[in-house]
Every structure is written in C-alpha cells, then in structure tokens.
C-alpha cells in the first residue's frame, strides 16, 4: 500500500476519469454524496486544514446559490412549499438544487486534488507515451515559461533605462509596452530556432532513441487498477440497466433499491474513498513505525 499520489500515472488517470464521469453524469443523490465525501476527505488528508476549510466555505456559498436558485428555474414537484409569482417553489426542486450544488462542489474538490496529485511531470510522462511530438512542445513550453518571465523583466528594465516608458501619454506607454513585447517575442523565437538546430544536431529525428521513464508499473499499480476497473464495470452495469435511476420529479423516488443498486453504491463508496483511505492508512503506518523507534 502506498500513498495515492505515488501510484503510476496511468492508474491515477484511470481513477480520476472514472470518478469524474460518475460524479458529473449521474443524478442519484447517494452517488453524489459519496463522491463529495470522498473528494473532501482526501483534500483534508493531503492539504492544510485551513485551506480546505476555506474551500468548504466557498462550496457552501455555491451551495446556497445553486440550491436556492433551482426552484426559480424549475417548478415541477408534488410538494409545493409556497408560491412565488404564481409558480410553485417545491420541495423536490429544492432537493434537486441541493444535489446539484453537491455535485458541483464534489467536481471542484476532485479537481482540487487532481491538481496536487497529477503533476506536470506525470502528464508529460503519459503524453510522451502517446504523442512524443506534443510532449516535446508541452515540456518545452513549460520550460520556457520561467525563462520568458525573466527575460521580459530584463527587457522592461532595459527599456526603462533607454527612456522608453517615460512618455506622458497613456498611448505612448502602450506603444513602449508593445515594442517590449515585440522584442521579447523576437528574442524568444530566435532562441527557439536555435534550440531546434541543436536538437537536430543531437539527432532528435533518429529512430531508436530510448527515453528515460521515471515511473514503473508495478504489481501494486496493477492491483489498484484492477480494483478501479472492477468498480467501473459494476457501476456501468448498474447504470446501463437503469438500476441507479433516480427521479426527482414529480415525486422523489423512494422505493427500496434493488440488489444491483446496493452493490454498485457500495462499490462507488469504496471507489470514492480510495485515495483518502490510502493516505490515512499510510499516515497510520508511519505513526506506528515511528513509535517503535
């Protein structure tokens, strides 16, 4: 068992794609609730508590906004609470808004952890396997970014020294800015071409190049991948056969869920909680070992 972010990038990708698909495109309130719980608990596990709490406030705000606005938009439902401008504000509509708000918050929370876990290095690794040229462009772009910032600063200072930005008029200063931009672009593109020449000299077009791969696919990765795919299979079956259907209108579906629904909900709960469980598990392991020292 490792921390979630230590698994192979392909596993991470499979996980996030599954989780986002199920969170974004299903409507069953339990699914959304589980997703929210999993996403937020993982955030709590890996991030500073304060940051996550601030996020939670934002989700709450979104929550109120969307949940309260939904009855304005949809007046279906058998339980009117009161009437606004001649149309019903119903309990069902309110609940749908609540679920919608949870869904949005869950998706945002998942992306929150995604940004932390799937680093540019991992993305480049995956991209390199699929589309080497694109990964060259992407990795070069990422490398040039700080370079350009620095150079832009230098050009600006040089420009100031030469008296470029001294113009009184706003338009004059814009023109100075533009000439600086032009200088930056010219310089960087010339650099780019030179880099290209040096790459060619070093044989970047030749066949048979190997590349360094920082990520190895191990047995643990396979185990987690199989778990993810198995959960996916169960859930897709349930979705495809309509076992996870949930109606809000005109009345909230309150029949007892079938066997397949229960199994798939359990699978989803495990799936959503996976990263949090792994992270907390590792923390516990560490504390246990440290106490033994």
């Amino acid at each position, binding site marked *: 068992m490792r921390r979630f972010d230590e698994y192979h990038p392909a596993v991470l990708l499979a996980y996030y794609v599954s989780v986002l698909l199920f969170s974004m495109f299903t409507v069953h309130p339990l699914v959304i609730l589980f997703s929210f719980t999993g996403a937020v608990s993982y955030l709590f596990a890996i991030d500073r508590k304060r940051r996550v709490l601030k996020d939670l406030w934002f989700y709450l705000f979104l929550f109120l906004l969307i949940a309260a606005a939904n009855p*304005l938009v949809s007046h279906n439902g058998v339980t009117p609470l009161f009437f606004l401008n001649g149309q019903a504000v119903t309990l069902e509509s309110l609940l749908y808004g609540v679920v919608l708000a949870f869904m949005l918050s869950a998706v945002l929370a998942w992306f929150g952890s995604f940004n932390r876990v799937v680093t540019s290095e991992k993305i480049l690794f995956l991209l390199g396997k699929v589309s080497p*040229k694109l990964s060259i462009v*992407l*990795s070069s772009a990422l490398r040039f*970014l700080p370079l350009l910032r620095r150079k832009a600063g230098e050009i600006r200072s040089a420009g100031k020294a030469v008296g470029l930005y001294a113009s009184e008029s706003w338009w004059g200063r814009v023109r100075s800015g533009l000439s600086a931009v032009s200088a930056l672009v010219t310089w960087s593109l010339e650099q*780019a*071409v030179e880099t290209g020449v040096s790459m060619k000299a070093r044989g970047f077009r030749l066949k048979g190049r190997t590349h360094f791969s920082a990520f190895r696919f191990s047995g643990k990765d396979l185990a987690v991948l199989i778990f993810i795919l198995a959960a996916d299979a169960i859930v897709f079956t349930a979705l495809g056969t309509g076992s996870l259907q949930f109606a809000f209108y005109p009345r909230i579906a309150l029949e007892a869920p079938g066997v397949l629904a229960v199994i798939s909900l359990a699978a989803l709960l495990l799936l959503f909680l996976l990263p949090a469980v792994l992270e907390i598990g590792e923390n516990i392991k560490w504390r246990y070992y440290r106490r033994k020292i």
Partner: protein
Amino acid sequence: MKEKARKIKNPVTFFLFIVAIPAVIVCGVVFFREKHYAFSSAAVAILSCIPLFYTFERKESKAGELIVLAVLVAISALGRFLFAWLPSFKPVAAIVVIVGICLGKEAGFVVGALSAVVSNFFFGQGPWTPFQMFAWGFIGFLAGLLSGVLKKNRIFAALFGAVAGVLYSVLMDVWTVVWADGTFNLNRYFLALSTSLPVMIQYVVSNVIFLLLLSKPLSDVLERIRKKYGLFVTEEAETEEEGEA
C-alpha cells in the same frame, strides 16, 4: 487554382467519425441517461480534437517548428498570467488567432489547445479545461482556415476574435444548462446568461483590443522567422509566394 488532393485525411479521422463518435453517443444514452446530452457533447468535443493532434503528430515537422510553437504557447500562457488580475481579460485568444493566421491551422490548433493546458497548470485545471482546449484549439484552427480573409485587414481579425468570444461564452452557457438539467431549460439559460453576459462582453472586448494591438507586431515577427528559417511552409503559403515572385 490548385487541385486539392481528396484523400482520406487519415484513417483516424475516418474511424473517429464513423465508429467512435456514434459509439460515444450511444454510450451516453445507455449509461448516463439523465445527462446524456451533456456527456455526449463533451465527449464529442474532446474526441474531435484527436484527428488534429494525430495529423500534427504524423506530419513532418522541423525541430525548430516544434520549439517555436512551444515558445508561442509559453508566451500566451504568460500573457494570461500577466493579466490574471483582470479576470476574463486574456490575450490568449488573440495570440492563438494570429498564430493560426500566420503559421497555419494545425499550428493554431496546437498552440490554442496547449495554451489551455499550460496556463491551467498555474490557474488550476478544472472541468473547464477540455472546453478551453477545444475552444482555443478550434479558434486557432479556424483562424488558419480563414487566414486568406483575415490576413487582409486587422479589422477582420478583430471581428473574428469578437465572434469567437461570443461563441465560446454561448457554448459554455448552453453546455452548463444542459449539464444541470439534462435537457435545455430556458429558464436556467436566462439565469446563466445573467451572470455570464458581463463575462462575455469582457471576452469580446479583450479579444478585440488584443487583436488590434498585437496583430501587427506579432505577425511581423512570425513572418520574419518563417521566411528567415524556412519554417511552417504550408501549401497555401507556397503558392502565394510563388504567385508573388
């Protein structure tokens, strides 16, 4: 008038349109029945980027061209970063349009799509990332396609940028509404519009301003680099130059 060879661009496009896209739509209906419109449209948007990436990957590119594209991506991402304090005021679309016009439609697409990815490394990826990739990518592609017209006059390019801004905003709104309700709910659309209208106006204004400001300096530099190093030689550009010479 040059005769355009009408071959199947590549087997990938063919496969995609005949097999993959219908399959995805069916999957949407079967598995995500309440939200299948949202799923299918998002999936199709993402899938339609694949042929372009594939073409880019397959064709012959000089190393210099790749790095030039990389630098342009970095510049547009930097531009977005610099104007972060003014939300919705981004030079990215303008830069992408200019790249599409000067360097061709594939270059425009790649710079557009990758600008989304790169700048989101700093701003945070979100559910909007695939849409930004798709939107900016296709803006670049279209700009390249229409480069004959857009090259003539800065105003045309600026108009194109304005239209692109509107289209992007409308697309995002419609998709969000369809995602929320599973069908197009006009009430919700008006609600979304009321919040997104100011943003859309900002997009349009920023696109127009940046295009007017940047098109001359940027395209001059790009043209110079092109001619000096013989990069981004496209068939249309070749015949143009032959015509001039």
